[in-house]
């Protein structure tokens, strides 16, 4: 396949990534919206579903290698301290302990910019201090308790506002405020906008720290065969881990293989190389045996990331007729102890609604707590909660229906980049969602006017997100002589069903049944490059590459068909399942017969993902509607129904797509009502490092969920027409629930989670 190099700019988790990408000279013909599809767009159960539910699937956690050793990480029990001395003699004397690694016998590998793999300056409870390697996990764990560490405690700060105060303990030389200044965005003149407004509302909103709480803890197994390193790693980023690990260990890329065939969730907490992976590789090399390191659940809470909390001061101005004149946002959030992920959340304010005057000022501070990491749509659920709450307040002041108010300020173009969207069906989402929830019939015209102690309410919120993906991304399609097909792509299926939709796209274009396609993903040694699974970019990045490869592979197979029929290839045409003679359609040869002519040959085609269209922004949009019931005596909020109406291009598999929405909505519900990281202010340690004090929703909390896809396939975005859905699903849920709670009780809760105590306090009962 002929390829060329282009500059590729695309949206990854709100960051515009610029790379040089190799793309095909000729793009495959897009799957036009009116083209009937047999396999893609249909509900197919996951190709690996049986393996996953039967225990057959081998996760990184399950990997057991001969002579494998087990590592456990000793973590700082203090929020801020200096390690004066580490004595490992007692641990090393424990039978079964093989080695102890600390900053004294591990090279000072840079980490987080100004820190190290093991840094004697520990900056949060959970910071890595030492690694024990032993014959069993139990012995390693016991040995942790035998390592003696002298800490010199340092003053700590865990509150973001206190971290900014003069004289606050400083975590890094640069000071506690990232870059020494806020991130400021400005368009128009907000002061002028507020002067032009007839109504101005100003409020402060707060959201809590929440965790990824994915089922599979972080785990890796490092195995050396000579100078070849294989790492089995639970990761959303096999290629990125490979590159970082090779660079740190000073190995050629072709000596490092990263494997992740199955994964038990990541949600953004597994986007890059982990300290423990480097440690496992170093230890395995030195000890000459494979080393596995699996985190206990507690360490996941302490050290493996979180969605940062936020304080958001919002001010919104509008004219009497509902036209927005100005929005300003000031926000502050903690990035945790190191530079890992920021606390910015202003994209919804800047982009969802048409508004000429917008100013956002976002700050991230260091505090002595676990570093933040991107979590499913970083910034958006919290930013959307505040924005959509205050918009409802403004609408109420104006005496407008919240939906009407939003439609009045509908953004036809991307105002930040001043260009059109490839597709936007948000109006349709509003309409479909409103109808499905019963917006006009059920919503309380006067909030809180329901009779009796148990009150119902309806609320909604809007979502914007990227997910358009882009090159570079490759896939190979291999046709062998029995007509079966192997597809390889270097992304990974992190649980969303990527393997299944890849098979669907290949089966569709090759005109063969799904069970003739095998998909290999998540292995840097076997697969061509595919992107990190983050930012909802996987589907939109790799399925066009699969399509390109499939088209080309079929074209090559046509040559075999032509020789079998003894005609020139250009006289043959294709329809699903067979090649036929244009002049005599009755004369044909099936895909399998043509493939049988391959004998020991095989067709191997590498397809590349084409560039994104110039001059467009690719976004998903959507609206979620919530119906809730609030018990005003106990403060309990029960979500009865969520309607999720989204504009996401083509849904390649409505079944796995629905699962994505369910998962996102449930996670959003946990953010809205239940989940919270509790820190003790007096000692600076996290209190609820387990899954019963850290409450994720159970089946009992899960409401009726209705998913409506309102969009047409977006073939302007890419030839397959899909846009990512993993993150859009979670974004508006909490905001919709919060607005529904207000509609039910007539009192606004401006801080998440909306727990019983917050509701009772808001109602003035406690």
């Amino acid at each position, binding site marked *: 396949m002929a390829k060329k190099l282009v500059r590729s700019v695309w949206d990854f988790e709100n960051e515009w990534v610029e790379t040089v990408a190799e793309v095909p000279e000729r793009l495959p013909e897009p799957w036009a919206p009116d083209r009937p599809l047999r396999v893609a767009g249909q509900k197919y159960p996951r190709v690996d579903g049986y393996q996953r539910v039967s225990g057959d699937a081998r996760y990184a956690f399950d990997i057991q290698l001969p002579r494998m050793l087990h590592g456990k990480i000793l973590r700082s029990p203090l929020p801020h301290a200096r390690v004066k001395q580490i004595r490992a003699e007692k641990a090393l004397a424990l039978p079964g302990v093989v080695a102890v690694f600390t900053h004294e016998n591990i090279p000072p590998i840079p980490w987080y910019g100004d820190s190290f793999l093991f840094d004697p300056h520990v900056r949060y409870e959970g910071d890595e201090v030492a690694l024990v390697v032993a014959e069993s996990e139990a012995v390693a764990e016991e040995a942790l308790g035998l390592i003696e560490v002298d800490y010199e405690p340092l003053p700590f700060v865990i509150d973001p506002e206190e971290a900014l105060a003069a004289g606050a303990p400083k975590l890094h030389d640069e000071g506690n405020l990232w870059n020494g200044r806020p991130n400021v965005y400005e368009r128009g003149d907000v002061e002028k906008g507020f002067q032009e407004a007839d109504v101005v509302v100003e409020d402060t909103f707060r959201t809590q720290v929440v965790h990824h709480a994915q089922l599979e803890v972080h785990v890796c197994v490092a195995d050396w065969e000579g100078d070849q390193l294989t790492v089995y790693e639970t990761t959303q980023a096999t290629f990125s881990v490979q590159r970082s690990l090779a660079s740190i260990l000073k190995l050629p890329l072709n000596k490092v293989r990263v494997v992740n065939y199955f994964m038990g969730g990541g949600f953004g907490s597994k986007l890059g190389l982990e300290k423990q992976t480097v440690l496992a590789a170093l230890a395995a090399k030195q000890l000459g045996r494979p080393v596995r390191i699996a985190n206990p659940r507690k360490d996941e809470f302490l050290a493996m990331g979180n969605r940062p909390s936020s304080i958001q001061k919002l001010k919104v101005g509008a004219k009497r007729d509902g036209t927005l004149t100005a929005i300003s946002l000031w926000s502050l959030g903690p990035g945790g102890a190191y530079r890992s992920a920021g606390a910015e959340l202003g994209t919804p304010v800047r982009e969802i609604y048409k508004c000429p005057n917008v100013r956002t000022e976002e700050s991230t501070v260091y505090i002595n707590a676990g570093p933040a990491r991107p979590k499913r749509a970083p910034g958006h659920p919290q930013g959307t909660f505040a924005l959509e709450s205050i918009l409802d307040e403004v609408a109420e002041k104006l005496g407008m229906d919240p939906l009407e108010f939003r439609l009045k300020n509908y953004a036809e173009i991307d105002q930040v980049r001043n260009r059109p969207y490839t597709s936007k069906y948000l109006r349709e989402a509003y309409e479909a969602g409103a109808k499905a929830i019963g917006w006009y019939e059920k919503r309380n015209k006067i909030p809180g006017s329901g009779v009796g102690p148990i009150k119902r309410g309806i609320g909604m919120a809007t979502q914007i997100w990227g997910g358009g993906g882009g090159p570079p991304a490759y896939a190979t399609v291999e046709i062998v002589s029995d007509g079966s097909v192997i597809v390889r792509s270097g992304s990974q299926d992190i649980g969303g069903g990527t393997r299944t939709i890849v098979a669907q796209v290949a089966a569709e274009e090759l005109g063969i049944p799904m069970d003739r396609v095998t998909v290999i993903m998540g292995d840097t040694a076997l697969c061509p490059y595919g992107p990190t699974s983050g930012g909802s970019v996987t589907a939109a990045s790799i399925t066009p590459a699969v399509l390109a490869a499939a088209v080309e592979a079929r074209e090559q197979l046509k040559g075999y068909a032509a020789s079998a029929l003894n005609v020139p290839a250009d006289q043959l045409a294709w329809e699903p399942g067979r090649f036929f003679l244009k002049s005599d359609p009755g004369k044909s040869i099936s895909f399998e017969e043509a493939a049988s002519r391959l004998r020991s040959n095989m067709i191997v085609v590498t397809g590349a993902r084409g560039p994104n269209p110039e001059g467009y922004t690719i976004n998903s949009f959507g609206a979620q509607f919530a119906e809730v019931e609030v018990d005003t005596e106990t403060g309990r909020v029960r979500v009865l129904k969520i309607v999720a109406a989204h504009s996401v291009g083509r849904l390649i598999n409505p079944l796995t797509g629905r699962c994505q929405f369910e998962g996102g909505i449930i996670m959003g519900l946990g953010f809205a009502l239940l989940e919270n990281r509790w820190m003790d202010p007096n000692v600076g340690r996290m209190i609820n490092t387990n899954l019963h004090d850290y409450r994720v929703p159970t089946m009992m909390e899960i409401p009726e969920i209705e998913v409506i896809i309102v969009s047409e396939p977006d073939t302007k975005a890419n030839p397959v027409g899909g846009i990512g859905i993993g993150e859009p699903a979670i974004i508006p849920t909490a905001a919709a629930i919060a607005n529904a709670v207000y509609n039910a009780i007539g009192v606004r809760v401006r801080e998440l989670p909306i727990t019983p*105590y917050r509701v009772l306090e808001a109602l003035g009962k406690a």
Partner: protein
Amino acid sequence: MKNFEHVDARSLAEASRLLTEKPSVAIAGGQDLLCMMKDGLLEPARVVNLKSIPGLSRIVYDEAKGLSIGALVTLSELEEHPAVRQLYPAIAQAAGLVGSPQIRNLGTAGGNLCQKPRCWYYRGHFPCLRRGGDYCSAAAGQNRYHCILGGDPCYMVHPSDLAVPLVAFGARVEIAGPKGRRSVPLEEFYIPPRVDVTRETILRPGEVVTAIVVPPARGRISAFVKFAERGAWDFAVASVAVVVQKGEDGKLMGGRVVLGGVAPVPWLAPKASEALTGSELSEAAFGRIAELALEGAQPLAQNGYKVPLTKSLVRKALRMAVNA
């Protein structure tokens, strides 16, 4: 978790002996014990299995003697037992609201009563009076879920759902140990922190709970209400059990109001219990009982909401009991 030996006891006498020879703990369902051991809060040299002792897993109802619940009866057996459901609904309700189905299938009645505190400071290796520390971290820390009654110096809440209706029914606990058997009212089984902040129950080394005996129901009505933040797999923020009789005059008589989730022990509310007698079956009367039940509540900085919440649960439990 430290290594330990696991021994099956074949009799109560053997269990007592095994438990006193070296630092040991007894295991029934193990649902709490495993957490305690994994968190490094208990590091026994020996775990003594009680499930190998015959005769401890029966539910027997006798009109004259009442209900006997063997210590090894599982919570799901208790929840589903016809006589318990019919005559002691509050007990069945409480058993059915513990944890999750998986926990109820393994967790036992005796084990549920002997749970260790669930205070996150106690479990999380923070400074804790109960664990020998100098102060209670909850007093000036994160205390949204801590007690509003009977605290000082320890502000834990008792984690058992089952104990709440059992105290309301006037149940007794049967205990076997190295010095023989004894039986105490359940409310005396628990030690308030003011008496001894380091012990939760009166069990002495080598002693185990063998059964819970509930007096005959004799027309008493009952209800249990639990409020937790989550619909399953969660401990009570507050709970209420009411056991009472409807007199022929249409008023209430006798009975008890017991609160869970708000005190370090299952909290028998004496004034509210007394006020049951002669009370009408009206919202106003239930409201007065609810006020009395929370009399003397002393919330900490963050848990004032538990007072109105628990009052609403008292009213709800009374409504449930009289309407059943």
